[in-house]
């Protein structure tokens, strides 16, 4: 039977790029359907309005929104559409997805993250399981991401350094701000291992891409040089250059059709002009980011899938996870430092690039009321985000009333000119529970008339305990650095840009959506390759693992299609 394409992929972010790249370079005909526009480096500017204040890279919430369900203090639940709130669960509807806008804090999961249940035991009310694959299965693909997608860093010896097949990173660390030296010295005095943070940013020209130019605006911003290792610049551009990849932007997939046998037989989408299309392929991949992937499956019922594609055991959308943790900040007030140090602290553009993983596993009886080790997490030190409007707006919060007039101006002036801020992001597992999931909202629909995703968010108390532990440890470091105004806290607010789960992989169809190869259990020609597959999220940002797993699954798909049609990959991306 002939098909329009060998493989049809919905989405183009970190979960899609490796599949697109692998199969296009292997000589297969690849179709990519991306709902957003196709921007290039020439379209990305350091524009706070577009990037952060007006949602310039995400859908208009009047057209497409979500419904959020949160727990009240008294245990009851409230729900509201995001258009009527300050919430926004979209993260980058453009070619390359949200990987265009990541900060690129890249950490691998540790071996124990693949076997959380057997390593640390059950936790009441948390649906913790071991993964169906091990760290050893994933390691070659973490390594591949370093080399093909591009990760800069330097390996040091520390208690939780994971095993590596390559001795060090292929690219040296990105340039570091002098504040990193303050962190190193403070950690040394405290007996803590301060480590260079790996970044998905090129520190030198490589892979037919330019180096970072240290504009000072990285996270949340699209990269104007191509140094940031987005799925688009690192993988899709070269896939398109093979001539085997047909990438269609502004293509909103509305339904995945399946036949009487339960197999997918067409993908239906609507283009920019509102015209409907249908395409078919030998194999299909969904990688629309966790929430939208679950939503698309649930919206795609068929003869053998009356409750949504792949949802015959009602697992689609279940066990949604985010990144748990905490945050903190402190200020290195200039009048406490020498003129030379102040000049250093005022430098702009380079990265902090420091992490601590000494508490990736915690033994603290006072905190956890047990001698058993607990799963801990990662502390990342970063600059306060430079967005000036956001920083100034925070200064309007007075004591019970708005601050304005000269007092506001004085506070803004002090904030911007009298010290350098250091910020902490602490990452721990967001434990999956029965109350964190995606369903279809019964009332709210998008502009195409499709039910929107209803996102129920549950915060497990263990997230908060570990978050507080890490936040307090980070506060100790900031105080040792001589920082003023040190704040540190755990957060139960889900980071809407760090979301995974919903289609966990496993061996039992009764408790998982995907098999260990990330093929939907009862749909033999459909795979899910974004972060949806993750049963647990590790205590790091998910992106490196999403990239690695997508490369792993791409190899499974490639083998199924019959292996390489062409020989080894040669970069064909244009230079200049």
């Amino acid at each position, binding site marked *: 039977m002939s098909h329009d394409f060998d493989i049809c992929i919905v989405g183009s972010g970190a979960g899609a790029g490796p599949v697109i790249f692998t199969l296009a370079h292997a000589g297969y005909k690849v179709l990519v359907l991306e709902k957003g526009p196709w921007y290039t480096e020439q379209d990305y500017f350091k524009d706070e309005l577009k990037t952060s204040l007006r949602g310039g890279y995400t859908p208009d919430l009047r057209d497409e929104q979500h419904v959020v369900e949160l727990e009240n203090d008294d245990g009851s639940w409230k729900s509201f559409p995001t258009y009527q709130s300050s919430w926004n669960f979209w993260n980058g509807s453009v070619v390359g997805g949200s990987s265009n806008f990541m900060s690129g804090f890249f950490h691998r999961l540790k071996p124990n993250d693949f076997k959380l249940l057997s390593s640390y035991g059950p936790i009441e009310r948390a649906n913790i399981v071991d993964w169906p694959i091990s760290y050893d299965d994933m390691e070659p693909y973490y390594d591949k991401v370093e080399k093909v997608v591009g990760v800069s860093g330097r390996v040091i010896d520390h208690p939780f350094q994971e095993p590596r097949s390559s001795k060090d990173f292929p690219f040296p660390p990105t340039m570091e701000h002098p504040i990193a030296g303050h962190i190193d010295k403070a950690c040394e005095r405290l007996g803590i291992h301060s480590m260079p943070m790996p970044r998905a940013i090129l520190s030198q020209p490589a892979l037919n891409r330019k180096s970072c130019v240290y504009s*000072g605006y990285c996270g949340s911003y699209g990269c104007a040089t191509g140094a940031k290792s987005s799925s688009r610049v690192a993988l899709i551009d070269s896939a398109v250059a093979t001539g085997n990849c047909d990438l269609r932007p502004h293509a909103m997939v509305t339904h995945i059709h399946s036949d009487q046998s339960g197999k997918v037989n067409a993908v239906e989408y609507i283009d920019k002009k509102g015209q409907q299309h249908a395409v078919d392929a030998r194999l299909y991949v969904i990688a629309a980011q966790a929430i939208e992937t679950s939503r698309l499956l649930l919206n795609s019922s068929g003869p053998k899938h009356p409750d949504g594609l792949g949802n015959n055991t009602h697992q689609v959308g279940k066990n949604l996870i985010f990144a748990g943790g905490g945050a903190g900040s402190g200020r290195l007030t200039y009048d406490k430092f020498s003129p030379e140090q102040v000049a250093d602290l005022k430098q702009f553009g380079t990265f902090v690039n420091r992490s601590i993983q000494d508490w990736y596993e915690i033994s603290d009886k006072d905190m956890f009321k047990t001698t058993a080790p607990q799963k801990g997490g990662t502390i990342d030190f970063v600059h306060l985000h430079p967005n000036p409007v956001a920083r100034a707006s925070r200064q309007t919060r007075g004591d019970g009333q708005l601050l304005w007039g000269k007092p506001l101006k004085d506070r803004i002036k002090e904030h911007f000119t009298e010290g350098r801020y250091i910020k902490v992001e602490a990452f721990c597992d967001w434990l999956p529970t029965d109350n964190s999931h995606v369903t279809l909202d019964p009332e709210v629909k998008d502009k195409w008339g499709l039910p929107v995703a209803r996102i129920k968010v549950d915060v497990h108390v263990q997230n908060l305990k570990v978050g507080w532990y890490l936040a307090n440890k980070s506060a100790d470091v900031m105080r040792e650095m001589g920082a003023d105004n040190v704040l540190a806290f755990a957060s139960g607010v889900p980071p809407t840009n760090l979301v995974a789960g919903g289609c966990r992989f496993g061996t039992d169809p009764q408790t998982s959506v995907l098999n260990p190869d990330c093929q939907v259990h009862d749909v033999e020609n459909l795979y899910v390759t974004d972060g949806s597959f993750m049963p647990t999220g590790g205590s790091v940002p998910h992106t490196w693992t999403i990239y690695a797993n997508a490369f792993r699954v791409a190899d499974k798909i490639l083998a199924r299609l019959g292996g390489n049609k062409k020989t080894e990959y040669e970069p064909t991306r244009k230079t200049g």
Partner: protein
Amino acid sequence: MDRRDFLLSSSTGLAALSIPAVVSAAIGDKLLFPEVEKFTQQDWLTLATVQNHLFPSEEHAPGALEINALHYLHNFLGNPATDPVDIQFILSGTHSLQQFAKQNHSIPFAQLAIDEREKLLRKFEQQPEGRRWLTNILNYILESLLTDPVYGGNPEQIGWKWLEHRAGEPRPPANKRYWLL
């Protein structure tokens, strides 16, 4: 004397100026966007007066006037990407404040003395809608202070210079402002 010097040297501030002078100084002679036709000259004067009160000019620090805050707000309200709900919210809040001033003082808001304005705005802030409106107005002032000059505020990077802020490169050109990309 240029218009800024004139306005700054006015001993009683904006209230002493004629409506056309203030609005013209702040938003220029450009035609109003159709989306903001509902805003009257009186509305623009009220908004300009509020902005000047919330973010006053100082000898060594720019105020709403120097950062073109009213011109910026006008551009925001008039651009095609702005949600009509946001436009209506600003307009309704402006009318509510005008009404509130009449109820409390029997004269237009823009003619109140500075301490009377402060008291009235603090009372207005006690109302949930009033607080939300003032929060929005403050945010648009800060956008005018610190967003790229291509959007109509922060003339000659006056806000960035005042706060020793380094903008990132590349900066957005006029043909790639957020509603055009």
